[in-house]
């Protein structure tokens, strides 16, 4: 446990000492700010329209702002995850520092969990920026806070799974770019898998669509915790971390 924290703190440090973390946070803040401004503007426009026509239109901050924004967040995350995870192991392999970690009295599992946790924490700090925008909704409106929290829980679970996949891919190469590109490809594929259910209903298509990471987020965006989605994300995280451990082991046999 202590060793895991040592690794985690070291990773967080290197995120925040290099421009990586600031670049990610800035990009995310700008992009999310734009989304927020956009959907808020549209919401206000709809409100004015309803007043002009003088018909009572149901307006709901949760349904019309928070839910689409959460869905956006889950997609935007896919683009940031490769940048967060690509260096985790690839960089250590390139510079040879992996030898220091592996020959220290610390278990592989602690190295992996520490690195993964650092990635999750960086993702969380990105999400904090989006939280700032939501504060305004509470200041000037009266949305329900429970669906928002559940949405964030879903985002966290989803990111945990994808970050674990990215961590695994990073152990496969010593080239960060390759690790990043491959992770990006996998993330993108896991997003669009769901589209298959649009035209095909056979079992294979349902299985394929089941692996779509985004599809499992929908209930969270609605403010519902569905056990089967939680199980999906958690088991994907565990599986990817397990593969990471195996990969680290085989790295030694091969190198």
């Amino acid at each position, binding site marked *: 446990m202590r060793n895991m924290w040592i690794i985690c703190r070291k990773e967080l440090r*290197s995120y925040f000492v290099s421009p990586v973390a600031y670049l990610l946070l800035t990009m995310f803040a700008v992009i999310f700010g734009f989304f927020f401004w956009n959907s808020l503007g549209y919401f206000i426009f709809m409100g004015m329209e309803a007043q002009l026509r003088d018909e009572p239109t149901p307006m709901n901050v949760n349904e019309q702002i928070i839910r689409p924004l959460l869905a956006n967040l889950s997609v935007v995350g896919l683009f940031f995850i490769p940048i967060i995870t690509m260096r985790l192991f690839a960089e250590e392999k390139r510079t040879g520092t992996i030898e220091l970690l592996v020959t220290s009295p610390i278990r592989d599992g602690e190295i992996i969990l520490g690195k993964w946790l650092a990635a999750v924490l960086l993702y969380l700090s990105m999400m904090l920026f989006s939280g700032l925008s939501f504060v305004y909704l509470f200041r000037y409106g009266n949305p329900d806070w429970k669906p928002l929290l559940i949405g964030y829980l879903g985002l966290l679970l989803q990111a945990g799974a994808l970050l674990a996949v990215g961590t695994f891919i990073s152990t496969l190469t010593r080239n960060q770019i390759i690790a990043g590109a491959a992770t990006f490809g996998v993330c993108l594929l896991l997003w669009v898998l769901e589209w298959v259910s649009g035209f095909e209903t056979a079992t294979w298509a349902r299985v394929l669509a089941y692996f779509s990471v985004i599809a499992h987020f929908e209930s969270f965006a609605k403010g519902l915790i569905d056990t089967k989605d939680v199980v999906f994300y958690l088991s994907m995280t565990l599986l990817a971390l397990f593969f990471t451990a195996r990969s680290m082991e085989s790295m030694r046999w091969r190198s």
Partner: protein
Amino acid sequence: MITATGLTKRYARNTAVDQISFQVRKGRIVGFLGPNGAGKTTTMRMLTCFLPPTAGTATVAGFDILEHPLEVKRRIGYLPELPPLYPEMRVDEYLNFVGKLKGLSGPRLRERIEYVVERCNIGDVRRKTTGKLSKGYRQRVGLAQAIIHNPDVLILDEPTAGLDPKQINETRSLIRSLAGDHTIILSTHILPEVEQTCQEVLIINRGRLVATDSVENLQHRARGGESVLLEVGSPNGPLDRAAVERRLARVNGVSRVAFRDSRQDRIFAEIESSGDRSIRSDLARAVVEAGWELHELRASAMSLEEIFLQLTREESAPPPAEEAAPQETRP
């Protein structure tokens, strides 16, 4: 302190290390000598639990590398060929991180950091990021990292590679000063390094252990006798080289006389003996009785170079014909 038994590492197509067995006693400095690609790094990586052996095993400080890797790692300080530095960390942050990784904390950690900074002489760069250090400093920080947890065993992979002569000397004396507290294995392909730094030597070639002995014994063994450097002068005019050669060759036990260099009135000769008897006193007497001046007489430490070439050559094809030196005589 270290016992390797039948340590083997096979890859798909080749065998990097083939059944190496050796023992290292506590407090000794052992040189791991061999040409590039002989399997030195692979062997060291197996001892540090970085690579699992294909067959065989080893114990370090009484712990088996396969059964108790964590205990072994706790007792080993390892400096890989490239010092494992994080370029964005400052030296003191780096030492702090490694110290914690090795299980140190609190006042003990601070004390050890001060100690290794002092010991490795890196005080003036401790606020710098490691990415900006010169090669010599990087190596020293690497060494500081290896000794931070006061390990029983130090494993150093080519600790002087790429350093300038002054840094090489500093590093060697640092390593020598660490012996006693630590048992040290260092690998190198530079022969004088072994002579200057190590007490014992393991010669490895193509994954096999070719020789293991103390440096002195190895020298003695390969030569089968003693080697003496002699400087002779004459009080009256130039010396007749042929006469000197004849006289020296007559001394009991001398097997070979070679002139290295000669000036007008001085002759420098290298003399080898074949037997176990020391020939130095006989040589001195012969020179003085002939009426010459004896300027210098000392046992030359045989260069390991020849031993090494001889041993690694025995492994491969028949030895190439020795170059005929015109000044040699073989009685």
